[in-house]
């Protein structure tokens, strides 16, 4: 597989970088994807453990919230969490839908769009979106930009974190830690093409078994993702603990970070130039000379001559 190369010439997009990223290479690097087959997941959380182990993260143990979700939410020390939801289907049967929630590695990442620090968020040619924390300034705009509410802010160092898709492991030809640990092959890793092929087979199998709305979750609104789900009920992704049906970068973020920023910057520059050229062409409003009252004017001039009222 040729999806495993990450070096500086394979960064295809950088945050806060209006000029193009290097893209002279011929594109032989294959896009990777992680496939999460919700229908096969047993909720053992081995992936959560593997994630914290590989990434050397130890989240607070916390306490029980009365549900299986633990920790209850993503954090700067928990790049992924299993979200458990109890769904009653049309037949009145209970389905336990367990979704591994983590960064989706969007092809059009909202975090990267919102980030003001050049190069703090990068997208590799293989599709992985990574936080280059060395350049992170801790503004947290990435969270505002993300359509999936993934990045989390660390109180330890005031920087944002999220799943890296184990870019370090992938770089060395290994699969992500969660994939490695999964006992049921609910998490698979490979080229995006291979994963979509494999997912299609899984979907066909599910449909045979009666899940007629089974499908692959690879939302087009963010250009597709490099983490894709196989869902039994792809028509209702929101039942999987609020997976958005049609995620896209919020129009507010577009209005905030889109074309208006360079336009406003240009207008600011022009306003200064306008002032300069007005001054140059029309000239200043010179001070009117002298006091209107001749007697006072003479006295004032005398005062000026004698130097004034300062110590």
């Amino acid at each position, binding site marked *: 597989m040729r999806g495993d190369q990450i070096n500086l010439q394979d960064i295809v997009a950088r945050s*806060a*970088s*209006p000029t193009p990223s290097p893209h002279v290479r011929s594109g032989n690097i294959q896009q990777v994807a992680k496939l999460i087959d919700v229908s096969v997941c047993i909720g053992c959380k081995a992936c959560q453990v593997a994630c914290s182990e590989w990434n050397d993260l130890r989240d607070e143990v916390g306490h029980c919230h009365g549900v299986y979700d633990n920790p209850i939410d993503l954090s700067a020390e928990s790049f992924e969490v299993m979200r458990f939801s109890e769904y009653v289907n049309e037949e009145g049967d209970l389905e336990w839908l367990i979704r591994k929630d983590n960064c989706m590695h969007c092809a059009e990442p909202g975090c990267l769009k*919102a980030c*003001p*620090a*050049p190069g703090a968020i990068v997208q590799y040619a293989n599709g992985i979106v990574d936080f280059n924390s060395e*350049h992170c*300034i*801790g*503004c*947290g*705009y990435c*969270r*505002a*930009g993300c359509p999936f*509410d993934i990045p989390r*802010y660390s*109180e330890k160092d*005031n920087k944002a974190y999220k799943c890296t898709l184990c870019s370090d492991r992938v770089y060395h030809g290994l699969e992500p830690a969660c994939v490695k640990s999964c006992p049921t092959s609910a998490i698979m890793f490979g080229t995006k093409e291979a994963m979509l092929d494999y997912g299609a087979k899984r979907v066909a199998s599910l449909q045979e078994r009666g899940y007629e709305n089974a499908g692959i979750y690879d939302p087009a609104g963010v250009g597709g993702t490099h983490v894709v789900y196989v869902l039994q009920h792809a028509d209702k992704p929101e039942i999987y603990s609020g997976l958005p049906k049609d995620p896209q970068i*919020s129009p*507010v*973020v577009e*209005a*905030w970070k889109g074309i*208006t*920023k*360079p336009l*406003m*910057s240009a*207008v*600011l520059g022009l*306003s*200064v130039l306008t*002032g300069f050229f*007005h*001054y140059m062409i*029309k*000239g*200043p*409003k*010179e*001070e*009117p*000379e*002298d*006091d*209107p*009252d001749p007697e*006072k*004017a003479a*006295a*004032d*001039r005398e*005062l*000026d001559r004698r130097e*004034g*009222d300062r110590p």
Partner: protein
Amino acid sequence: MSHSNVKHGILRYGWWTRTNHWLIAISFVLLALSGLALFYPTFYSLTGLFGGPEETRIFHPYLGVFMTLFFLIQAVRFFGDNLIRRHDVQWMKQMPDLLANRDERLPPVGKNNAGQKLVYWLFLATVPVLLVSGVIIWRPWFADGVPLWLHRTAAMVHAYAAFIAIITLVIHVYSAIWVKGSIRAMTQGRVSHAWARHHHGLWYDEIMRGKERGDDTALPSTGKHIETGKDR
């Protein structure tokens, strides 16, 4: 000396008015520079002025709160001088005369002309918006506690309000450079009689009639009309 005498001029801005103004002005310029650094990547190198990108991110909101505090004091003190009057409308209509320096055609105005009043109201409209939206997106203190839609909206509003405020600043600074004598008024306090009569005829008349006393310069807590200098 070619310029008119100011040593016996009219006290336009007293010491507290000037101090208050320059506290705001210095803060505002630093806020604009640090804010622009994070506004658009082209300006990112401005973070170097503040010790680095993360330092800029930390510094900006504290300075914003500091500035807003003094801005509010000033806004209250300047309020009365900036109410729009009928002659202001006429003055505004004669913008071409103003820009072409045909000042003799302009109607006489009070202590502030309509342009200054407009600047006042633009700042008064944008600074509170900048404060509120800025606090909402302030990390690590507040941003984690707000819903995402609010965080996004506040970030957008902050950028647009900042744009309007910086444009207003450019207009304000240019006007000061353009109208000779006004920078000295704000740095040293006094303007000549000729300057006052030429630029602010109604204000000059009032002072001559003894109704007003230039700047007063009452401190925020004390009443108006406190003797601060040698008025004639």
